[in-house]
């Protein structure tokens, strides 16, 4: 049986995904449950977190370049997309009659344009940040990316046009469940395609041993920068979607390095290099603080211990599964292992444990 070309198969997957998403997004608004907006919001935040985690996983998990500046890329995408819609696209769309097809198409089309342009600017920043990674390794790269994220934040704090320290409000709230999950699905698809391509193989080779990869003819420099560009583009897009989701308000304090830490916690908790692991961890770490809201009722004095419990659980999870929930495998590989228990996985497990303690 001949298989269809990969891009046709991907387009079919995407079409099916879009159909499901449209169904879901209409379904979710139609369910008559009180507080559905709250659940809807958590789901949307979850979708954004999935995009962030999977995109960071390309840089950290696949290419093995330790980046702590993801919040910075997200901030660039968010602010640039919001700037475009607030000052240029929004007023233009507002001139059209509310509720008309024309209005609807312009709104969604321009949201897409703004989000993609936001991603593009973030990708340019990713290119600039990727450049030092030519010379820096490991922890030095980590601190440079972290510093870069902080520089972005301080610059935003000082630009009056985008709200400075007050934050940017009045962004058109165009983003919705559909777009957020469309991008999440797209990110997973891109990431999955990437890791099985020659580029992805080069990423993995660099992660495992950069010198050996270079000796085998992999242009490590080019691929590392590539990983940064792809990862930061998707993070920027996630930021753009976040900016346009109700309450459509941005503040520089949302994009401190704490945000980067949250994303990296998702990637590592899921298992570095595991796409489904990143998705799983993003889901868990988004719902965990929300699920802990009820604990507050049992604490006298109205103090909220959920973030304390969250951090303790993060520590305990890392102590019990240091290689992440799924290790380097994907969810289906883990599930399949239960049935056949192949020898290969036993070797994998050993390798994870036997990584050198100190270099």
């Amino acid at each position, binding site marked *: 049986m001949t298989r269809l070309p990969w891009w046709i198969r991907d387009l079919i997957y995407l079409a099916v995904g879009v159909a499901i998403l449209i169904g879901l997004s209409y379904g979710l608004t139609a369910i008559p449950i009180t507080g559905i907006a709250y659940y809807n919001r958590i789901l949307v935040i979850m979708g954004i977190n999935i995009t962030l985690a999977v995109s960071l996983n390309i840089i950290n998990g696949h290419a093995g370049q*330790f980046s702590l500046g993801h919040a910075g890329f997200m901030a660039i995408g968010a602010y640039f997309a919001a700037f475009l819609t607030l000052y240029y696209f929004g007023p233009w769309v507002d001139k059209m009659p509310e509720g008309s097809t024309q209005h609807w198409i312009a709104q969604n089309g321009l949201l897409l344009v703004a989000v993609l342009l936001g991603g593009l600017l973030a990708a340019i920043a990713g290119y600039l940040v990727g450049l*030092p990674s030519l*010379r*820096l*390794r490991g*922890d*030095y790269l*980590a*601190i*440079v990316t*972290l*510093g*870069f994220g*902080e*520089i972005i934040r*301080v*610059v935003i*704090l*000082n630009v009056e046009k985008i709200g400075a320290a007050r934050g940017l409000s009045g962004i058109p709230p165009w983003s919705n469940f559909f777009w957020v999950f469309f991008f999440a699905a797209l990110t997973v698809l891109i990431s999955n395609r990437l890791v099985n391509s020659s580029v992805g193989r080069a990423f993995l080779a660099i992660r495992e041993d950069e*010198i*050996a990869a270079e000796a085998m003819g992999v242009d490590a420099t080019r691929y590392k920068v590539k990983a940064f560009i792809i990862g930061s583009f998707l993070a920027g897009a996630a930021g753009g979607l976040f900016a346009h989701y109700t309450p459509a308000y941005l503040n520089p304090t949302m994009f401190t*390095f*704490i945000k980067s*830490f949250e994303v*990296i*916690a998702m990637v*590592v*908790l899921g298992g*570095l290099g595991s796409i489904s692991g990143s998705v799983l961890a993003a889901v868990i770490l988004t719902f965990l603080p929300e699920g802990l809201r009820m604990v507050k009722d049992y604490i006298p004095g109205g*103090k*909220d*211990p959920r*973030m*304390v419990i*969250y*951090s*303790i659980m*993060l*520590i305990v999870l*890392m*102590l019990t599964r*240091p*290689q992440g929930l799924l290790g380097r495998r994907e969810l289906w590989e883990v599930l399949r292992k239960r049935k056949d228990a192949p020898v290969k996985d036993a070797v994998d497990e050993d390798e*994870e*444990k036997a*990584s050198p*303690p*100190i*270099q």
Partner: protein
Amino acid sequence: MQTILQNLLNGIAAGAIYALIALGYTMVYGILKLINFAHGDVFMLGSFMGFYSARWYAKLTHQAGAPEPSWVMAAVILLFAMIACGLFGFLNERIAYRPLRNAPRIASLITAIGVSFLLEYGGQFVFGPDPKFFPTLVDKHLITFGGITTTNYQLIVLVVALAFMALLQYIVYGTKFGRAMRAVSYNFETASLMGIPTDRVISTTFVLGSVLAAVAGILYGLAYPKIDPLMGVMPGLKAFVAAVLGGIGNVPGAMVGGLLIGLIEAFVGGSSFSNYRDAIAFIILIVILLFRPSGLFGKYQAEKV
């Protein structure tokens, strides 16, 4: 000229505090190759331990309200904060880092971030999120010489910080323990084969680093008496930058790096770019790392195949 001298003095005082924190980062990194992100929050813990011990001290000596400033009290609360933070550093290493010694390095990094979150959110939960006012430990008075005005606080910060740095320098380069520490940092496995109790050395390193962070916390409380559970985030980050700047893993490098960051910030803060004060440390870091990828004093190590 006067403003330059003034900025110089402010910068050195702030830089001395950064240097004390940076030492903890650099020692732990030198030995475990672990960026202990919780270290900035240990500094916060030191400040709060000082704050509460001053209250207890007032109660013990039957003083109503704020305790009377005195050198004895300053010494007592400094000691208390050092012991409390040292204990925390010990437990932290035992519980959160030691079980992950043989795991991938990134796992302990995430645990460190978890501990940092725990201290920040736990601090907000236990101490309350509002800023608190650090008690006056010693009477404040102005000192003027050569046209510049300073307070005795800045001098105290400088003297105490330098004294502790000198002490650390002695411990690392002049004692048997220091030699063991350097050996472990040079090669962990060989050191343990040579009979060095690596676990004990690592524990002690954590305790030393946390004690220095406590000293920094008290000095910070003295100089800038508004403390809150998130106060450790920025100084912690900048101290880490200082450690990288000096060449991470290098003890004198951390001191120089801390002073440099303090000075640069003071001069930028006094210029027309003062809004960019928080970014400047990172900009300089990036520029320096581009030309010297392993910091100012770090040794460039050729990668072994």
